[in-house]
């Protein structure tokens, strides 16, 4: 008996991908196309949070650190050192992965709230540092950094918004597939166990510190990939890439969509990002909306929308397969 590899939720995904593929043909204006392009990258970033924060249960409140490391690496390496973009992108991925390894090593011995505090502190330290840091161009002609940011040299003439849209969509689909594969792998199962009960996991032979480190590394690599894509699309790295809002955003999208479901946080990001950016709500209003969305979800879908739906499906399955009852 073979288990169906692709159940209900990926069906939704295929339909969603189809709609997104055809959307530009319906005559979207360039502004909305841009918003959706960034939305795809934000969705990858939200999914990457779910790998470590949802699946492995290590609540990271400094996830922007991995994202910002990648955008800054792209900007600094291309603008300051004159590296070609693909090389800088590769280095940026390596650097954000290394940042994940470092944060993972520091937080692996810690429990629950202390992981959140540590990652919050590390993320904010990086934010403050890059906010105040000025970088000088090779001949000292320009100074870059802080809120103004650093340009990213793509080395090619400007890309059409349609190309960027489809490239970002392909990137989102690839990353979603990778993240779902991870979630359904043996390692994903072990991470779910670890997030449920560290004690039972240890008594089952799970090396929990190794797995916590691994989860941070994988999540940081994916967040870094989203950062590289963002740097390429926006053409600039700013201190905002390290901001607390960006870290909270990931955690909020995951809580609303359903922690540990991967698909939930991605869909939440796809829905919320265009809604917030496309309508031009000011940042203070956005934070209020996050709080409101969180309150409503926790009231009606305590495990997030996708999480609660999954629980209900499980409960149905349980009564269906009971065998001895009725």
């Amino acid at each position, binding site marked *: 008996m073979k288990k169906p590899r692709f159940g209900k939720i990926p069906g939704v995904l295929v339909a969603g991908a189809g709609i997104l593929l055809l959307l530009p043909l319906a005559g979207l204006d360039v502004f909305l196309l841009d918003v959706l392009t960034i939305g795809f990258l934000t969705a990858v970033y939200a999914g990457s949070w779910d790998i470590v924060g949802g699946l492995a249960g290590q609540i990271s409140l400094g996830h922007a650190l991995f994202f910002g490391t990648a955008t800054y690496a792209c900007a600094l390496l291309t603008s300051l050192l004159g590296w070609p973009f693909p090389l800088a992108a590769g280095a940026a991925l390596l650097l954000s992965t290394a940042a994940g390894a470092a944060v993972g090593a520091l937080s692996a011995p810690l429990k629950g709230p202390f992981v959140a505090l540590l990652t919050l502190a590390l993320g904010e330290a990086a934010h403050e540092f890059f906010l105040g840091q000025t970088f000088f161009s090779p001949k000292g002609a320009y100074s870059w950094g802080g809120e103004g940011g650093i340009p990213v040299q793509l080395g090619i003439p400007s890309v059409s918004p349609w190309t960027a849209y489809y490239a970002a969509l392909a990137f989102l689909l690839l990353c979603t597939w990778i993240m779902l594969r991870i979630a359904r792998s*043996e390692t994903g*199962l*072990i991470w*779910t*166990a670890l997030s*449920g*009960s560290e*004690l*039972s*996991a*240890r*008594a*089952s*032979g*799970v*090396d*929990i510190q190794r797995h916590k480190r691994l989860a941070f590394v994988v999540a940081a690599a994916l967040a870094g990939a989203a950062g590289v894509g963002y740097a390429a699309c926006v053409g600039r790295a700013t201190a905002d890439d390290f901001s607390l809002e960006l870290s909270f955003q990931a955690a909020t999208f995951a809580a609303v969509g359903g922690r*540990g479901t991967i698909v939930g946080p991605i869909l939440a990001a796809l829905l919320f990002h265009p809604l917030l950016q496309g309508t031009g709500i000011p940042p203070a209003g956005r934070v209020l909306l996050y709080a409101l969305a969180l309150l409503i979800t926790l009231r009606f879908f305590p495990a997030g929308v996708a999480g609660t739906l999954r629980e209900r499906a*499980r409960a149905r*399955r*349980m009564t269906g*397969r*009971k*065998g*001895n009852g009725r």
Partner: protein
Amino acid sequence: MSDLLLADRIVKSFGTNRVLRGVTIGIGRGEVVGLFGPNGSGKTTLANIITGLARPDKGRILFEGKDVTDMSMDARFRAGIARTFQIPDPYPSLTVLESVRVALLCGEAARKETEGEGPGFQENLDSLLVRTGLFAQRFWPAAKLSQGCLRRLEFARAISCRPRFILLDEVFSALSAKDEAELVALMRSLHREEDISFLLISHNPLILEELCDRVVAIEDGRVFWEGKPGDLAKYVPSAHHAHGDEGENHEGG
């Protein structure tokens, strides 16, 4: 006597509270040893030190002749030292099958290095579930199981590493008579067929008399008495009291 497991002169303090003051306990191959003691006598601390959840201040743990004092709990599980918990803590979002699968994955990885490819993983998983009587409930969320089934799940998890030794911490307390009888039968079959040694922690002298080859009583962090299970009530005053209280059975929760 060649011990399978030896806890050698274990000392452990929490702050100024000296919980264990030099306890030595050996468990032979295929032996079932009972550990008796009143609340606060250091039973659970000793259990944690034997299974790697806590480190002793002094003393060492030997398993099959090797010093495992510095091994983590998960490494000890992979090496063949398993345990069950007094209060099971099931994974909230996993099914029974998935919960056992986690333990078998980690135990299996350890076994492959020593024995080569065993029989199919899925067969192993199914036979573990059948053996512990959980097969019918394998798709249930682990957290929805009854107390009796949760204890079986603890057994299923423990035996997934093909252990030579299992520490059972109050595994028979606060159960219905039927659940208790079934669990006792499961433990006996494991002992008989797999030659697993047990350290059975309990404050219930009746259970210890029924199941153990030998009983060690500890009190105030020291070994107070050691001998045949039948003599426990005769020599250990707290066991005598426990005998009298048996009808109330308000422990374990």
